[in-house]
């Protein structure tokens, strides 16, 4: 595949790794947050860690829309199926995510709920066309990347008069979340991690452009490199960040220039603006309520808004108590810091969303680096035990 294989070339990877090794300052640490789960996944799937020196750390951010969706919203989706009898169309990613009471869309389906996996909003529209007697709700999740397809579906439904189609909108916004993480007061300062820079969103930026990140360098003095999702893109971007740090520069650089421009896809932006508006605030798992961080459907398209269309009951959805997803999503803990990791919580029996999404940090550690992680956990426990003995 063109524009894919070239960016997985082993010789080039070794060359980039050598340059990084040559340029890092061994006397310091480099903490770079990859905001996007897509980067997290690429790093783990290709073992990028093995190619960078030990003092270059990847801090995994909240950029996985599956992971940050509060359990309450998933419970609402289940209520749409079970109480309102709708056909719920969802991307495959959401099907195994745990809701309250050990349930998931997959288990709801197994119990007879009409949950259908779709690959595209085009398919969800088709389901609505083929089931005119049923209410069909598309579970809209995702960042700016995934919002325009939802917007187009709503517009298409209006054009066709598909009155049985609506969207349960959970689309969220990237820059607000990054800003939130950097606004330290809202995060436990004891846990706060010093970030030396950001691997900036890749495909989000294809839509919104690089301009929305400029506040990071301007207001927060953080280096940013918009980075592609292939492993060489990651290595390249890390090198670019190291150079900014070493040189004391602070800029928004664009490693992913083959797709990302400063202004992004303005047509898509206009479409989104026509159909959606900002929510005053939205609950993010891990981050709490984040102002201006999500979209809802405008009143003018209210007929297609499942939240207006169906009464959703008040509910007290509770996360699994010991699940550390929230801290992991803020970048202040790692999966190995969760005592459920690998014992109670596995991908077969996930306690938190981070163990389900292939962009989730827990899933990444489990799937691609379990051996090392379990060894580290054992070592940590040994240290603690040793410490206790010493103290005794």
């Amino acid at each position: 595949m063109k524009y894919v294989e070239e960016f997985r070339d082993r010789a080039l990877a070794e060359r980039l790794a050598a340059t990084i090794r040559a340029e890092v300052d061994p006397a310091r640490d480099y903490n770079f947050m990859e905001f996007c789960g897509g980067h997290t996944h690429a790093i783990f799937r290709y073992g990028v860690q093995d190619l960078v020196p030990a003092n270059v750390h990847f801090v995994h951010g909240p950029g996985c829309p599956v992971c940050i969706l509060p359990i309450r919203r998933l419970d609402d989706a289940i209520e749409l199926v079970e109480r309102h009898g709708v056909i719920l169309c969802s991307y495959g990613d959401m099907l195994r995510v745990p809701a309250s009471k050990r349930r998931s869309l997959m288990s709801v389906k197994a119990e007879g709920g009409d949950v259908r996996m779709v690959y595209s909003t085009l398919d969800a529209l088709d389901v609505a066309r083929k089931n005119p007697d049923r209410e069909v709700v598309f579970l809209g999740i995702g960042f700016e990347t995934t919002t325009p397809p939802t917007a187009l579906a709503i517009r298409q439904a209006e054009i066709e008069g598909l009155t049985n189609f609506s969207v349960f909108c959970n689309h969220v916004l990237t820059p607000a979340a990054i800003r939130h993480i950097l606004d330290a007061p809202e995060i436990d300062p004891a846990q706060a991690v010093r970030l030396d820079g950001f691997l900036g969103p890749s495909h989000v930026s294809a839509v919104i452009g690089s301009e929305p990140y400029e506040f990071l360098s301007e207001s927060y003095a953080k280096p940013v490199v918009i980075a592609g999702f292939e492993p060489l893109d990651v290595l390249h971007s890390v090198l670019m960040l190291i150079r900014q740090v070493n040189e004391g520069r602070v800029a928004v650089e664009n490693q992913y220039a083959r797709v990302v421009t400063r202004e992004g896809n303005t047509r898509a932006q206009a479409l989104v603006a026509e159909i959606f508006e900002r929510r005053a605030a939205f609950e993010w798992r891990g981050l709490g309520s984040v102002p201006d961080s999500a979209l809802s459907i405008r009143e003018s398209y209210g007929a297609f808004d499942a939240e207006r269309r169906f009464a959703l009951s008040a509910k007290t959805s509770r996360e699994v108590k010991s699940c550390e997803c929230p801290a992991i999503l803020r970048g202040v803990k790692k999966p190995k810091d969760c005592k459920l990791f690998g014992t109670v919580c596995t991908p077969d029996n996930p306690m938190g969303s981070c163990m389900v999404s292939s962009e989730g940090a827990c899933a990444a550690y489990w799937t691609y680096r379990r051996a090392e992680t379990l060894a580290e956990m054992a070592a940590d426990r040994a240290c603690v035990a040793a410490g206790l003995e010493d103290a005794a």
Partner: protein
Amino acid sequence: MCLAIPARVTALHDDAMATVSLGGVVKTISVALLDRVAVGDYVLLHVGYALHTISEAEAERTLAMMAEGGLLEAEIAEMADGAGEAA
């Protein structure tokens, strides 16, 4: 949330639909989010929609930079100014 891959447009159809090829795999997608697109263009495909075109020139430039072991010295100043350019 952003699994998206490059695909080459092989035909354009009504209703802003197009046929694309990804390494031999053929798929019908929507190009309604693009201002303009032509047969032969590479686009970034996400959940059945083209999100953006891909700049062959920028791709080559990036590969060349990597081959040089990172940024070409000449690029640094330019990049620092802001974002690059895609077709």
